């Protein structure tokens, strides 16, 4: 039912979800640059206009000779093309841009004159009297003598009455130029045809349809490309379609294609890798099906919560595939290798912890300023948790039916890899240390390396027709780089004033923008006052002068348009649709798009500085500049990174703490994360790659994978007590398989021709390689299990410290010293949770009920007090020691054995102040030798031997030397008492004795010596009471008799001894100082 519901809802979501190809919605909506650009796109973005750009191209050979040329179509062909475009049903108007069109320009200027305030309009009319015109023409004649600016020559011919000067004084209106300046090159190299749709193109589909219609028409009429050179089969594009609809159509098509390609290739290659490893098809299909279900869950969430998927949100499928595939493969591997039911809880726990931690880490992105990342956070969270659910519930049910079997070679390879890594652990550790050192040294050199490329152009496809067209359009008419600003006003007059104020404040010429901002609704009034027939007057004045009729042609054309306006033949509709930079809010308040020129060449932070100046001017406006947006996004992203990374790390490490409950393991997670990030950075530098906002997804993917791998590996290593072989059998194949499949899957876009996609695939691959290398090599190499380390503190367990402690014990009162010891023990327990856990596990042998960690910590506290007494014992007078002993039971057993003249083996556990037994024995007049294992240093061995010798107790060190054991036998046979601790296995020889909570190991080897020496064994216990006095008890001697084989005899008596010690141990678990992890 659940699956059916997901399939139904997922189908609905997939069919109705909207793919957002726009970039702006994924950026912080509170940024002025984002708001400005959104307003720009909404009001001025020409959602209805597609522009056909044509560029003349000449291809030269090596000798500089032209071998192929594309020429812009001539006027006739252009007219024919525009006519055909005009006949298309969805086309409202077609306008040719870039080619000199005096008629259109005259219309444009006439429109601005028609919008002049009435008094200025009247002044304009007054210029057209024969006297005024003659006077102006004479002045023009005079200007041609003397100092002459070549550039002014053409203007003078076009504007002999110098109307330009007059109009500029009224607000920067320029007369149209019908000819290029004589110092300028002739003929345009770029031409654009603006095609306007009848309706706004809101959807991807409508954009695609309209763009396709235009493309077909232009292609049929003009051809799409020209072969260059004929033998190379290279085609030169003859035209480019651009404008917002073209960009939307191209981007959305490309995105869908890319996502499908990537998901498809990744799925196929992962499947192939899976099949190669496990030679199993049906389970693979099941896994893919479950992955598909998780993907659908994410899609459903996206549809319900957001209504659509944006560019970043689409990346969720990629991350999901990379991270969550691991869960399914882990479960499959568990079933295929028949690891046994005991491993399932650990695996299940690992999967859920990994899913929750990774989802938590991504969840922090919800608080990012970027809505795109908010979407990603939710989708990843949903996807990971549902995959974890399916992997731990549905998949086991399904796999249980199919009973998959892993090929035997997998374990062989895994074992070989584990063995190789085990042998080279030190090498790997040293390599890591050296690598970090090199990285630190290299930091000054790579500090300025562009790890992140904030240029939004990097998101564009390199072969993008739409963006290439946009760039060409920028060259139209020698445009200079401008900073677009949307100025707001309460009325048209206010808008004009605001814009003029902006120009003054910036000391910049904004006349080209002011030109198109009417100062009010004066057109109707002016139209009635216009006196037509001025063109004839101009012609007559020219005819009477030194100039021929071509002079003043533009003026006559302008007057002709105004006459047509007066007669109702001209309504300026085309000009207004093409050039208007004034729009209105719904309440009628106007706004204008003003292009502020930027100095050339444009400096990198020019836009930012200009915007600061604009803000300081006090003009009511918003920026609509992409360069400023890039800068703003960088700043916001940096702020977000600083703010969120702290929380993300906190969440990750808190959840890791929940998983491990050991600082050591959490730190290993942290180290893994840091090392993998460093590795990624190093790989980026080594390959000379920068991340884009798209490939930045590699970082969360990396975090997700590293958390996933490290959690599983560390949990497995802990479970197997650092057994690499066992761990790798469980995890190496799934991790490697997921890693290699993801590398191939994400690497598939590398084969494409799109640099932005190639960068995405490549950076993702680098991230995955870093994660897999960290997971399979660095984590196991850096991991250490407490059992493989000495159970004592290597820092504190030294002769020097013992000497100092002994000195303190000589003058600090015993209660104070014991309290100090207890404090130290408590601190040690708090800072060494791993050691506490070991003690907790050992104590679990003594009870059926769970052992609280507080009891384990109490062991350390008591041990502190015992140590204090131990040092006191070495320095205090005999009487004081005797006062430390409270009750003693069974002393007669010693005497009895001693009087028999036989040696005796005194056996006890690591209980309380067991060294006190030696003192007591000597006090009873029994010679005693203490057996001890070699201390970490000779100095400490000597210190402890000297310590015992103070009250006449000998020390006999036994190591691997078998002669030392013969020495023990000699001591026993000579009638001496030999004391030994038996509750810790020695050299792997032990007997597991049933205790309430499990099987407790007891060292059995020593009983062989007692058998050899034919001496009795006396179990002894020492415990400390609440009053601080020690109670000693010597149990009745055990005389060893043969009971079957030697081994059977030893086992029998060892069990007897263990059971003799058991009640005391169980009664005083907090005094059993068993710090070594028992097998």
């Amino acid at each position, binding site marked *: 039912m659940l699956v059916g519901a997901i399939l139904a809802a997922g189908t609905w979501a997939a069919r109705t979800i909207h793919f957002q190809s726009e970039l702006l919605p994924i950026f912080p909506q509170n940024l002025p640059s984002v708001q400005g650009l959104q307003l720009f796109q909404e009001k001025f973005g020409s959602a209805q206009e597609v522009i056909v750009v044509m560029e003349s191209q000449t291809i030269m050979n090596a000798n500089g000779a032209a071998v192929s040329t594309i020429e812009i179509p001539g006027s006739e062909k252009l007219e024919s093309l525009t006519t055909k475009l005009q006949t298309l049903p969805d086309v409202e108007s077609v306008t040719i841009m870039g080619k000199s069109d005096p008629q259109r320009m005259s219309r444009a200027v006439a429109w601005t004159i028609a919008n002049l305030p009435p008094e200025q309009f009247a002044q304009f009319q007054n210029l057209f009297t024969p006297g005024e015109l003659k006077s102006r023409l004479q002045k023009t004649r005079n200007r041609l003598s003397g100092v002459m600016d070549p550039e002014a020559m053409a203007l003078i*011919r076009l504007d002999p009455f110098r109307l330009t000067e007059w109009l500029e004084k009224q607000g920067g209106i320029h007369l149209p130029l019908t000819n290029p300046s004589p110092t300028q090159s002739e003929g345009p190299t770029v031409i654009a045809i603006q095609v306007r749709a009848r309706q706004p193109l809101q959807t991807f589909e409508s954009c695609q349809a309209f763009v396709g219609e235009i493309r077909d028409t232009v292609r049929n009429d003009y051809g799409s490309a020209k072969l260059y050179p004929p033998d190379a089969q290279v085609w030169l594009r003859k035209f480019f379609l651009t404008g917002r609809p073209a960009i939307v159509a191209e981007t959305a098509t490309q995105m869908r294609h890319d996502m499908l390609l990537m998901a498809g290739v990744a799925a196929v290659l992962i499947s192939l890798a899976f099949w190669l490893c496990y030679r199993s098809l049906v389970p693979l299909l099941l896994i893919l099906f479950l992955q598909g279900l998780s993907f659908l869950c994410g899609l459903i969430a996206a549809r319900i919560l957001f209504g659509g998927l944006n560019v970043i949100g689409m990346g969720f499928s990629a991350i999901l595939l990379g991270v969550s595939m691991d869960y399914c493969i882990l479960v499959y591997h568990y079933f295929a290798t028949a690891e046994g039911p005991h491993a399932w809880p650990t695996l299940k726990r690992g999967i859920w912890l990994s899913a929750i931690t990774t989802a938590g880490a991504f969840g922090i992105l919800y608080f990012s300023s970027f809505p795109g990342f908010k979407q990603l956070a939710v989708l990843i969270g949903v996807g990971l948790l549902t995959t974890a659910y399916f992997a731990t519930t549905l998949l086991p049910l399904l796999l249980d039916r199919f009973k998959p079997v892993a090929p035997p070679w997998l374990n062989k390879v895994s074992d070989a890899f584990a063995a190789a890594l085990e042998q080279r652990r030190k090498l790997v550790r040293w390599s890591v240390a050296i690598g970090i050192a090199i990285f630190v040294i290299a930091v000054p050199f790579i500090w300025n390396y562009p790890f992140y490329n904030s240029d939004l152009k990097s998101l564009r496809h390199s072969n993008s027709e739409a963006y290439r067209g946009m760039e060409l359009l920028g060259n139209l008419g020698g445009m200079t780089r401008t900073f677009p600003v949307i100025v707001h006003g309460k009325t048209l007059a206010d808008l004009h004033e605001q814009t003029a104020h902006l120009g003054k404040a910036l000391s910049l010429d904004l006349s080209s923008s002011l030109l198109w901002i009417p100062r009010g609704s004066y057109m109707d009034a002016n139209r009635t006052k216009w006196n037509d027939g001025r063109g004839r007057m101009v012609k007559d004045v020219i005819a009477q002068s030194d100039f021929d009729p071509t002079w003043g042609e533009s003026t006559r054309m302008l007057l002709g348009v105004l006459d047509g306006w007066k007669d109702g033949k001209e309504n300026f509709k085309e000009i207004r649709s093409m050039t208007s930079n004034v729009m209105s809010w719904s309440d009628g308040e106007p706004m204008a798009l003003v292009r502020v020129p930027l100095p050339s060449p444009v400096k990198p932070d020019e836009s930012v500085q200009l915007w600061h100046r604009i803000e300081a001017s006090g003009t009511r406006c918003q920026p609509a500049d992409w360069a400023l947006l890039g800068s703003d996004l960088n700043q916001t992203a940096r702020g977000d990174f600083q703010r969120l990374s702290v929380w993300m790390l906190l969440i990750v490490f808190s959840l890791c703490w929940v998983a491990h409950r050991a600082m050591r393991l959490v730190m290993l997670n942290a180290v893994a994360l840091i090392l993998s990030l460093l590795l990624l950075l190093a790989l980026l530098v080594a390959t000379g790659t920068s991340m884009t906002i798209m490939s930045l997804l590699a970082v969360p993917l990396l975090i997700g994978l590293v958390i996933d791998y490290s959690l599983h590996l560390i949990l497995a290593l802990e479970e197997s007590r650092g057994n690499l072989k066992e761990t790798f059998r469980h995890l190496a194949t799934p991790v490697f398989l997921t890693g290699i499949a993801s590398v191939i899957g994400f690497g598939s876009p590398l084969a494409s021709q799109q640099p932005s996609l190639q960068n995405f695939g490549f950076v993702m691959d680098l991230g995955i390689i870093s994660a897999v290398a960290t997971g399979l090599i660095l984590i196991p190499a850096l991991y250490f299990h407490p059992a493989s380390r000495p159970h004592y503190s290597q820092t504190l367990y030294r002769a020097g410290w013992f000497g100092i402690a002994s000195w303190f014990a000589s003058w600090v009162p015993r209660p104070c010293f014991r309290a100090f010891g207890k404090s130290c023990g408590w601190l040690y327990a708090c800072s060494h949770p791993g050691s506490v856990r070991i003690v907790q596990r050992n104590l679990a042998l003594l009870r059926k009920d769970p052992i609280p960690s507080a009891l384990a910590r109490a062991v350390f506290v008591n041990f502190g007090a015992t140590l204090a007494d131990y040092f006191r014992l070495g320095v205090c007078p005999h009487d004081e020691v005797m006062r430390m002993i409270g009750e003693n039971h069974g002393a007669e057993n010693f005497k009895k054995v001693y009087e028999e003249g036989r040696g005796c083996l005194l056996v006890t556990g690591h209980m309380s102040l067991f060294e006190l037994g030696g003192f007591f024995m000597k006090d009873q007049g029994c010679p005693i030798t203490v057996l001890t294992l070699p201390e970490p240093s000779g100095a400490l061995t000597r210190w402890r031997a000297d310590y015992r010798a103070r009250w006449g107790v000998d020390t006999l060190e036994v190591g691997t030397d078998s002669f030392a054991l013969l020495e023990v036998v000699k001591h026993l046979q000579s009638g001496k008492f030999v004391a030994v601790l038996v509750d810790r296995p020695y050299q792997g020889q032990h007997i597991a004795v049933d205790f309430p909570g499990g099987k407790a190991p007891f060292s059995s080897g020593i009983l062989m010596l007692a058998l050899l020496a034919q001496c009795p064994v006396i179990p002894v216990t020492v415990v400390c009471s609440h009053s601080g006095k020690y109670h000693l008890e010597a149990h009745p001697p055990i005389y060893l008799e043969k009971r079957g084989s030697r081994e059977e005899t030893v086992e029998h008596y060892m069990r007897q001894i263990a059971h003799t010690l058991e009640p005391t141990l169980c009664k005083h678990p907090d005094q059993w100082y068993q710090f070594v992890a028992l097998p």
Partner: protein
Amino acid sequence: MVSIRRAALILASIFLPTAHAGPVEVGADGQKKYADAFEMKQSATHTFECTLRQTLKLQGMKKPVISKGHIYYAAPDHLLIRFDEPSDEFVLLNGKHVTIKKSGEDAEERDLDPKKESDSTGIAMLLGFFQNGASALKESHRIAMFEMEKLLNVTLTPKQPDRRPIMIVTHLSLPDLELHSQLIRFSRENEMSYEFIQPQRDQPLKEGIFDQPVKGATK
């Protein structure tokens, strides 16, 4: 398309209708000899002064506009063209700083922009002729030379077909290679020519002639 040589010949015959003999093209060696000698002469010149006659022909004008004045040059980079007809007009170049004064208007001061085509082809180009014979143009222009009795015609045409001016023709008197006249053709029907009358080299110029002579100049 009219070849450079033919164009130069036609221009020379139009420009110098009084020439008695037909123009003779100078070979590569001869060109180098003349170019080196002219460059040396110009480079060695400290001051230059002459009367100037400027003729402007524009498309659609029934007769050309003629202006008269004086030109003053002082090495390394001072150039002044002061007009008498019309009066109160001058253009002054001190290094890269140019001051332009039109009759009845305030003077305008600015620095020349080498990237601006009109700046690099206007007075700056003229200064280059005085400094070193406009050797900088050798890279970007094709050169043809013709001997015409007592004059040497040096014709420069840009290598890039879309560059303006489309032709610069300089006439030097022979054998002393003194500046005689210069024609700058901006397009087929728009051109400006200078005649250098009574040139004088290395004579002391009036003191302070290149000082800013303007009040209220706009920057």
